[in-house]
């Protein structure tokens, strides 16, 4: 593909998420622009264009790592349209012609007998990671403590305490939403029957209780769709060699500013809750 175009930067997409239909035609507006990603609001949904380093996402088009929409001149409010290629104002044109599809649907991963040891490694690795989005004014200490306690109990308590985390915390995707998505991912990968109902409940709340971006991730979770980094993390924790868990945690925590740490915190809580439920059923 030509590196330049009189209309602006022209690049090739590497992958696209299967929940997108590349043959569709639609128009939307740029919602937010970041150093290596941009969010486009389409109807009541969200399209993300991101560099490959962070991995694929549901509802995303993935491009090369050096993608910098700010340098390319993308601004919030610009018109974006999908018509074979994705055009973002006059700044960027992204071709989907050679992009490979990627499935965001998270499969069930059978946990081995050593799940207890694996969870211990996960906890240790997480404790060494960076900042959570539960900080400053919206530290959420009480809500987080209540949810952690509820995670050791029944699904009703988890649902109720999870409600209080929707929209709580700093950032574009508030920390509470990141944690709940991580929790749902863990339940899904473990095969817990309440995974979809819980995610669906929080997605319904999210529509009026949190940001557009966080709502989109809740809706994907309700449909069993998660970011590639969560796929990789859960595969490493549940099915990979135990000595690879710490590195997988570190990689996942690097995502976003604080979102990675909060997602992995949710994963840990979800796996422990799912394991406890399995133990109780077996007893």
């Amino acid at each position: 593909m030509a590196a330049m175009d009189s209309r602006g930067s022209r690049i090739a997409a590497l992958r696209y998420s299967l929940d997108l239909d590349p043959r569709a035609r639609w128009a939307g507006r740029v919602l937010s622009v970041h150093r290596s990603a941009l969010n486009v609001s389409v109807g009541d949904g969200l399209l993300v264009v991101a560099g490959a380093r962070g991995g694929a996402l549901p509802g995303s088009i993935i491009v090369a790592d050096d993608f910098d929409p700010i340098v390319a001149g993308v601004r919030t409010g610009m018109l974006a349209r999908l018509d074979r290629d994705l055009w973002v104002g006059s700044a960027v044109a992204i071709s989907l012609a050679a992009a490979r599809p990627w499935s965001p649907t998270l499969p069930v991963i059978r946990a081995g007998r050593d799940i207890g040891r694996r969870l211990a490694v996960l906890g240790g690795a997480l404790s060494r990671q960076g900042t959570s989005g539960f900080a400053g004014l919206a530290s959420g200490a009480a809500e987080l403590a209540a949810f952690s306690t509820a995670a050791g109990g029944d699904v009703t308590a988890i649902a109720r305490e999870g409600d209080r985390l929707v929209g709580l915390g700093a950032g574009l995707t508030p920390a509470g939403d990141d944690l709940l998505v991580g929790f749902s991912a863990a339940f899904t990968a473990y095969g817990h029957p309440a995974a979809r109902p819980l995610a669906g409940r929080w997605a319904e709340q999210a529509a009026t209780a949190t940001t557009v971006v966080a709502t989109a991730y809740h809706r994907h979770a309700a449909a069993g769709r998660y970011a590639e980094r969560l796929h990789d993390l859960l595969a490493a924790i549940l099915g990979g060699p135990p000595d690879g868990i710490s590195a997988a945690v570190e990689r996942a925590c690097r995502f976003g500013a604080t979102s990675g740490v909060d997602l992995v915190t949710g994963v840990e809580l979800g796996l422990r809750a799912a394991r406890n439920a399995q133990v109780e059923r077996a007893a």
Partner: protein
Amino acid sequence: MTTTVRGSIHRNSYRDSVELMGIAAELEKLPGIKRAGLVMATPANLGVLEQAGMQAAAADVKGPGDLVVAVQADSDSAAEAALGRAADLLAAGAGNAGDGEAAGIVAPQTLREGLAALPDANLALISTSGTYATAEALRALKAGLNVFLFSDNVSVEDERELKELAARRGLLVMGPDCGTAIVGGVPLGFANAVRSGPIGLAAASGTGLQQVTCLIDRYGSGVSHALGTGGRDLDVRIGGLTMLAAVERLLADPSTSVVVLISKPPDATVSARVLEAIRGAGKPVVVNFLGGEPDAVRAVGAHPAATFEAAARRAVELAGAGGSAPDGGGEPGDSAAQVAAGAARLAAGQSEIRGLFSGGSLAGEAKLIIKSIVGPDRHDRIIDLGDDEYTVGRPHPMIDPRLRYEMIVATAAEPTVGVVLLDVVLGYAAHPDPAGALAPAVEEARAVARAAGREILFVASVCGTEGDPQGLAAQEQVLRAAGVVLAPSNARAAELAARLVTAVEPATAMVAG
């Protein structure tokens, strides 16, 4: 004490959590501020504000997409000042400039915004990744700007297209992969602080340009402009487009009375085209095409120079006006007796030179000179540590000397190496104290060699001026104190290294039995 709560609402302002927490922390340091928070206006976060007694800050919220800046202060004026500061910081944040309520400083993020802030600009310096560099350079040219293209990974086809467009528009593209230039006295990229004067240069060689301009300064003359063309400009596929354009400009420039052209070995056809362009030039032109044919240069009435030092000397002589290059020699280690004394410190068989360079052109010049003195059948390794092989995943050695440090120490363990040859490059954007960073490596290497019963000699030149941030004299003093033998130029350092090893006794063969 009274407490007041104030807030501001920023619609559709999406920032990451670390940025928001950072701004809150900065606001809390302001005088009179008790508490500050920046949160998205979700019901949960509004509940947090209520628990903190700051719900009044969110009175005008319309939905969870709004960003609330909430401050609790001991006066209205303190609160207002904090909200103003928050607005400035949010506006200065990258990318989301769509917030109509933000006030204050907006740093330009694109060429268009930069031109709006500086409408009389005539040069764009572009340093983005290769994918976007071409598009940005195109935009700049179409906006009527000359381009200094620091970025690499631009394709040959794109380079050709950019330079042809520039030629049609009467503009200059310096690059791609152009690291050094001085335009009207303004240094760009890895340049040095040199005196202004009558000598104009055009170079397809970054450290070559630095070496020649620094020596011109040392010899008492100065530089009008030093234009970089990018390392590939004299390749047959580009055809010397920028070199030809630069020559035209320098010949027409009233502040330039002598022109110097510098390149690594150019393509023969392109070299001939450039020489034809200076035939009958109204000003003296010095041509330093490494490995080039001096007769071809003389045939067009220009002055050939085989080394960067020779180019600087000749240019200063031709410029006259008070500058004068000192005679050759004058540095310790140059006389035959001193070379012999140095070689005597080396053991039989320590006849190899290991060159560890941060400048590609300086490495290239050293290789040619060493080969001309010691012959082709050698095991010397002259390494350009700025080559892609050594810079994947790490900064350039001119900025980060750590790899060179390791290689210097490792070389001391090689029994056949007698001389380590170095370049030390000063100037803007270079390491703040390259000599200070290398001296411990030299000392450690010498200790390693001594422990094995050997000496190892270090020979170097410092490419820089007194006006550079690091200071030429101070850097030379540090190196001398570490036992490095200094030469006044890269060419002389290479000559000295070659003479030292040729004076070393060869190793005697081991006899079996």
